[in-house]
């Protein structure tokens, strides 16, 4: 289990993450919803160790990573697919994948990544900046999987993608979960998260304002919409 207990972070003078706690089991998907500026991206970067944060406890399968560096957290089995993809533009597709160091569990064979994303194999010699948005997203996910992580943090993986590509991303996430990896999925699209997540948390102003199993909200998403500040569209 990936367990985060009472994590706090600042962004400049802003107190962005205010005591968030959450957990996800292997083979499960935790959805994180929230409006722009709720602190979701800072949370993901803080969990990986890229953003300075203080937490009461961060454990990965019982192993304490509270004071571990980003590199040690990645070696222990965490990986991030960042918002905006952030692939390396001057590296080829193949270099983007090969440059990833192995974790303690080892490293995926590059052929395995190409099996998941055949389009990447076709584009293996192309520079990162020559790829379409969808291809870049596939590469960002493939790059994160290269270190064979036990837990994958996905930060808005469908942002700016065409619906057909979004469907591909859904399939990829389902497969990742079915392989026994834990997934933390940050998104703004409620339906997308409800389709994939077993549990979810809703963040607002750096705090968790709602949490629970997602099944209950599939039938009645009213409470979610209220917390996300979206009108239910009830006619007057």
């Amino acid at each position, binding site marked *: 289990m990936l367990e985060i207990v009472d994590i706090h972070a600042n962004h400049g003078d802003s107190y962005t993450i205010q005591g968030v706690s959450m957990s996800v089991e292997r083979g499960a998907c935790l959805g994180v919803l929230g409006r722009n500026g709720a602190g979701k991206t800072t949370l993901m*970067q803080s969990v*990986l160790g*890229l953003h*300075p944060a203080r937490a009461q406890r961060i454990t990965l399968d019982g192993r304490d990573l509270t004071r571990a560096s*980003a*590199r040690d957290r*990645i*070696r222990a089995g965490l*990986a*991030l697919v*960042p918002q905006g993809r*952030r692939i*390396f*533009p*001057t*590296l080829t597709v193949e*270099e*983007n994948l*090969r*440059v*990833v*160091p192995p*974790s303690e569990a080892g490293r995926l064979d590059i052929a395995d990544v190409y099996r998941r994303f055949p389009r990447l194999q076709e584009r293996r010699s192309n520079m990162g900046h020559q790829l379409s948005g969808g291809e870049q997203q596939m590469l960002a996910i493939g*790059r*994160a999987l*290269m*270190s064979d992580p036990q837990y994958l943090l996905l930060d808005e993986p469908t942002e700016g993608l065409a619906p057909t590509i979004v469907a591909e991303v859904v399939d990829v996430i389902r497969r990742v979960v079915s392989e026994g990896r834990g997934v933390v999925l940050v998104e703004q699209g409620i339906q997308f998260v409800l389709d994939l997540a077993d549990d979810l948390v809703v963040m607002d102003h750096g705090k968790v304002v709602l949490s629970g199993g997602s099944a209950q909200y599939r039938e009645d998403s009213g409470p979610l919409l209220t917390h996300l500040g979206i009108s239910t569209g009830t006619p007057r």
Partner: protein
Amino acid sequence: MLRIALDGLSFGSLLFIAAIGMSLSFGVLRLVNLAHGGLFMLGAYLASSLLSWPGGWVTAIFGSAVAVGLLGLAIERGLLRYFRTNHLAQVLITLGIVFILHWLTLAVWGGAPLLSAPPEIVSSGVSISGQQYPVYRLALIGFGLVMFVAIWLVFSRTRYGAMVRATVDDEQMARGIGLRSELIGATVFAVGAALAGMAGAIGLPYLGAYPGLDGEVLLFSLIIIIIGGAGSILGSFIAAITVGLINAFTAAYLPFVSSFVLFAVMIVLLIFRPYGLLGREIVASVHLPQSDGLGGKAIDAVAKRVAALRTSGGQP
């Protein structure tokens, strides 16, 4: 004419080896290293002493490269890594190192210029246009080409090169996939310093070693970085050869405006290509902690004081 061109090519080749380290340090680490010329000068002085050791030129070249490379590593690990985002502090620190190296070399080797004969194997001459031309200078051209190809292959064809380019592209994300971007930066800085030391040693029969050599090499290196583009290996090579040729031809035909022509080329290029021939915009993608610790705070305080004096027109 051919002799002048060869002079330009040999000087340009030497400048490439001298400047590439500074270009990579700025392109990869965003580090402004004004001590780079001092590292070149130290390499030349060290080589002049190491020549009397067993192994002669081999010991002198590799000994200078290793010693100056280790000094570069110490400078980066001991000082500069704490100021990755503070260019003013980098300027002040490396300027301090320039003074230290200047006085150190003066104290150890004295103020008289040192010059040595080229290595035995390249000490002869070949007939070009009916006149003897030193093989040493032709060897400089060949060595410059070999170094260019070697550095280019390392950076474009190896996993280490890919890691360096990934760090240049997005330092935070490089850490986000588990790369030791700080260590990568340190090795780039050390290798750049080693190349400067090696260039100083190789250039000893050409330029010699004397107080003030550091300033001249630094100026040429800056021009090469501006023309070629920071962090671009091919850009640095083209710029170094161009600078060498301009320097040789203007020295032969327009000696009174030699320096002016170099700066004019640089200024024109800056107007039309602000990031150099093959450079890219330097984006502040370094996400490391700001200066910290007592030393960091002291340097920050000095940097802020200098900035305040500058904006107040020098009035305290």
